[in-house]
C-alpha cells in the first residue's frame, strides 16, 4: 500500500511562484547583467567575466568587505550574549511579563529609516540629546559626523539597540518552554546557577539561538538603511559597508555590470557563511 502521496507539492506552489517573482527572476537578471556592459536603453554589450575579476581585485571592495565583516562580528558578539542575559533576567510569570515583552518588542517595530533618522538626531553633537550631553556636559569629544571611531560606535550601538530584542525574544521563547521538572531535578542535584545555564537552559535554547544568530548574521551583513541614514557611509568611507558601496556603484555611478558582479560575490559570501553556520549548529542533532 502507498503510504505517502504527493499532494503537499500543491501547497508549496504559491510560495514557489512568489519566490520566482521576487527572488529568482531578479537573481537571473543580475547574473545576466554581471557579464555585460550597458549605457541604458536596454542595450547591452558582452563583457565576459571582466567585472568579476575587477571587483575581486579592487581595494575598494576588499575594504568594504572588511568593514562589513567587522560590523557583523561586533554586533553578533555584543547582541547574542546581551540578549541571552536579558532573557535570563526577565520574569517567567506574573504581571511584569507582558510589560517586559512589549518594551522589548518596541525597537523592532520602528522602521529602519526612522531608526537611522532618530539616532542621527539623537547623536548630533550640537543639537542631539546624547551628542550634546557627551560633548558639553561630560566633556567627551564625540562627533560621529567627523570622527570614524565615533561613527562606528554609533552604528554599532544603534544596531544593538534595534536588534538585541530579537535575540531576547527568541531566547525567552526557548527559556519558557523548559518544564519546571528540569529545574527541580537540578535543585535536587545541588546544581550551581552556571551548571543550570550550561546543561539545561543553553541546550534548550540552542534551536532558537541558531535561528536568532542566522537572522542577525544575514540582516547585519545586508544592512543598508540605518547606516545610510545615520552616516551615509562617512566620515570619508569609514562606515561604507558592502551594501552602501553596492548602491553607490549601481545607482550613483550607474555601473550595472560591476554592481551585478559585486552583488553575486556578496551573495556567495552570505550563502556560504549561512550554510556553514547552519550546518555546524545543527550537526549534533543529525547524529
Amino acid at each position: 500500500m502507498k503510504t505517502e502521496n504527493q499532494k503537499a507539492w500543491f501547497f508549496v506552489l504559491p510560495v514557489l511562484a512568489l519566490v520566482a517573482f521576487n527572488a529568482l527572476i531578479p537573481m537571473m537578471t543580475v547574473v545576466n547583467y554581471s557579464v555585460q556592459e550597458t549605457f541604458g536603453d536596454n542595450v547591452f554589450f558582452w563583457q565576459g567575466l571582466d567585472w568579476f575579476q575587477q571587483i575581486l581585485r579592487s581595494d575598494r571592495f576588499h575594504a568594504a568587505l572588511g568593514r562589513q565583516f567587522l560590523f557583523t562580528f561586533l554586533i553578533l558578539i555584543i547582541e547574542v550574549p546581551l540578549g541571552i542575559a536579558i532573557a535570563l533576567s526577565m520574569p517567567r510569570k506574573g504581571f511584569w511579563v507582558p510589560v517586559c515583552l512589549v518594551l522589548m518588542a518596541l525597537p523592532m517595530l520602528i522602521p529602519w529609516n526612522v531608526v537611522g533618522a532618530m539616532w542621527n538626531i539623537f547623536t548630533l553633537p550640537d543639537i542631539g540629546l546624547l551628542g550634546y550631553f557627551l560633548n558639553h556636559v561630560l566633556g567627551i569629544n564625540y562627533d560621529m559626523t567627523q570622527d570614524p571611531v565615533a561613527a562606528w560606535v554609533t552604528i554599532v550601538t544603534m544596531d544593538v539597540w534595534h536588534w538585541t530584542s530579537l535575540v531576547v525574544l527568541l531566547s525567552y521563547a526557548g527559556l519558557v518552554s523548559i518544564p519546571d521538572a528540569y529545574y527541580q531535578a537540578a535543585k535536587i542535584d545541588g546544581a550551581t546557577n552556571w551548571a543550570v545555564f550550561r546543561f539545561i537552559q543553553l541546550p534548550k535554547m540552542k534551536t532558537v539561538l541558531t535561528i536568532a544568530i542566522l537572522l542577525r548574521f544575514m540582516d547585519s551583513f545586508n544592512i543598508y538603511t540605518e547606516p545610510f541614514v545615520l552616516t551615509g557611509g562617512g566620515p570619508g568611507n569609514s562606515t561604507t559597508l558592502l551594501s552602501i558601496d553596492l548602491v553607490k556603484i549601481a545607482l550613483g555611478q550607474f555601473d550595472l555590470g560591476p554592481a551585478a558582479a559585486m552583488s553575486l560575490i556578496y551573495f556567495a559570501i552570505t550563502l556560504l557563511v549561512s550554510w556553514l553556520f547552519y550546518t555546524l549548529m545543527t550537526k549534533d542533532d543529525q547524529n
Partner: protein
Amino acid sequence: MLSWMAWTWPTALLFIGIFTAIGVLIIAEIRHPGGAARKGVLGLTTTRGDRLFISLLGTSYIFLAWLGLVGMPLWWPLGLSIAWGIFCFWKV
C-alpha cells in the same frame, strides 16, 4: 518582453544546466524516495539535494578564487569544479 532581463546564451546555459540538475534530482527522488541520505567524509548527513548544493557552492568559489588570484583562462577551475562535483556526489 524579456529584453530587460538582458539574456545571453552563456548565462541561459548556466541556468538551463542548474534547472536540469534539479530536474534530474526530482526524477531520482520519485524513483528512489528518501533523498539517499548518508553520512559522508565531512561528517555531515547529506541527501542528493545537499550534495548538489555543496557542489554548486564549491564551484562558484573555485571560479571566483581562480578569477581573483590567477585570472583567465578558466580551464583549470572548470576541471577542478568537475572533480569537486564528482567528489561531492561520491564521498560527501
